[in-house]
């Protein structure tokens, strides 16, 4: 099949394509102190990453490996304390096949935080300079792109404007050979049969139903909160706003992934094995918006598209998060944080296909270098999750 749409991206030595060219300073545990942040303050082109879980290796290692291995990251500096279970050498080993420059600084061996910051600045400076002339954007098929889709701060407009429009854009992306990841099985309760029907085979079908059922069974405090669980899944606020059934709400949410067949179910932070639409599972503990976006990038998404009704400000150090709101007031009031106004469907009589096309074009522009509102303000939210 021939694809026609192209974007301008960085082709990495391992063949993956990035939309950004960051130097990532990643602390393997927050106990090193704010070393990544201090280096980022002083070195242009550096993104700081840290997290608190030194012991949750099962979840944290894939997140950090996926983060460091993301093609948006041109070079990596790992900062380690030495006592944590998440091992810097492990991470460096696992991303070695990407052939990207990777250095490790041990705070204790280097002689404390101040010396580590100083040394880190020197290393990062060299890395940034090398990337600045060795990496060049080249024209490449949209098929190389992988996009995560998320909703946060949803309201009544989400299922009418933002999510359907993003779904149109995701169908176009997949039509061009790209990859899409959708998450939050708890939000799919009510639509499990409908989604399962779209699975490419019986195995995927069973997996979809299984993770949705389990997300409900694992809902925090469920044993004592059966009535409350039901209320939390479709709240009095939802009902007042016009949502009648859980299925209606779930459909409004899953619409953002588009209508493509579902290729498979990924574990939390599992690398995308191919193209098309995938659903990513959670860890045992329910995940925040930031943790899900972090997991999308760790799985290999270069861009995240996030719909919102009432507004959300989050960004990521790893890649662009394009904010789409269906609420025209939110777009006006939070213009600093919103990229696309799907509320034009209500106020300017635009259609869902029109806004969908606009979002698709914006994805190509952002992939080729256009910065999102959150990136320009350097919003670098990052969260690894754990299951206990």
């Amino acid at each position, binding site marked *: 099949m021939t694809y026609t749409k192209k974007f301008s991206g960085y082709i990495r030595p391992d063949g993956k394509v990035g939309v950004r060219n960051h130097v990532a300073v990643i602390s393997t545990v927050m106990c090193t102190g704010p070393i990544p942040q201090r280096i980022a303050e002083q070195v242009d082109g550096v993104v700081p990453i840290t997290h608190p879980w030194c012991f949750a290796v099962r979840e944290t290692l894939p997140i950090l490996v996926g983060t460091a291995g993301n093609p948006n990251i041109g070079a990596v500096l790992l900062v380690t304390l030495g006592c944590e279970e998440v091992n810097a050498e492990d991470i460096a080993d696992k991303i070695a096949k990407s052939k990207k420059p990777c250095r490790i600084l041990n705070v204790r061996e280097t002689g404390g935080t101040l010396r580590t910051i100083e040394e880190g600045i020197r290393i990062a400076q060299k890395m940034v300079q090398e990337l600045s002339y060795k990496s060049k954007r080249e024209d490449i098929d949209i098929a190389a792109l992988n996009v995560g889709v998320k909703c946060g701060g949803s309201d009544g407009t989400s299922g009418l404007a933002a999510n359907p429009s993003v779904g149109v854009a995701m169908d176009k992306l997949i039509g061009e050979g790209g990859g899409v990841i959708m998450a939050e099985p708890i939000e799919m309760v*009510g*639509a499990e049969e409908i989604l399962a029907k779209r699975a490419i085979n019986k195995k995927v079908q069973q997996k979809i139903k299984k993770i949705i059922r389990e997300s409900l069974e694992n809902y925090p405090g469920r044993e004592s909160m059966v009535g409350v*669980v039901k209320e939390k899944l479709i709240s009095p606020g939802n*009902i007042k706003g016009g949502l*009648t059934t859980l*299925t209606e709400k779930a459909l409004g949410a899953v619409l953002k992934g588009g209508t493509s067949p579902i290729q498979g179910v990924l574990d939390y932070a599992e690398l995308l094995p191919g193209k098309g639409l995938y659903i990513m599972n959670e860890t045992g503990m329910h995940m925040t918006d930031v943790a899900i976006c972090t997991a999308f990038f760790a799985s290999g998404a270069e861009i995240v598209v996030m719909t919102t009704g009432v507004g959300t400000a989050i960004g990521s150090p790893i890649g662009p998060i394009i904010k789409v709101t269906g609420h025209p007031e939110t777009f006006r009031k939070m213009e600093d944080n919103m990229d696309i106004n799907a509320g034009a469907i*209500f106020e300017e*009589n635009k259609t869902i296909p029109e806004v969908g096309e606009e979002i698709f074009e914006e994805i190509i522009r952002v992939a080729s270098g256009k910065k999102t509102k959150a990136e320009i303000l350097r919003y670098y939210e990052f969260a690894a999750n754990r299951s206990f």
Partner: protein
Amino acid sequence: MKQWMILNQRDNVATAVCEIKKNTVLYIQEINKKIRIRQEIPLGHKFSLEQISRNKEILKYGEVIGKATRDIKEGEHVHIHNVTDPREHPAI
């Protein structure tokens, strides 16, 4: 400015995107039909595009979102008072 949206051509309900007063007559161009609205439809709520008999399916986004618990006339408010979600959620 839009007053309603129909999300899929299979749907038998439309969603109001502004408050629609009782007795308003709407020309629904998507289905080439005039419909008289029988109750006030608040913003975000649904109204029927046709007569929906008791136990028949309510279709939105091209899928079954629930079933009518009583006969619903064309142009009626469609919500928790006349719709049930027939799917089982054993864990709830």
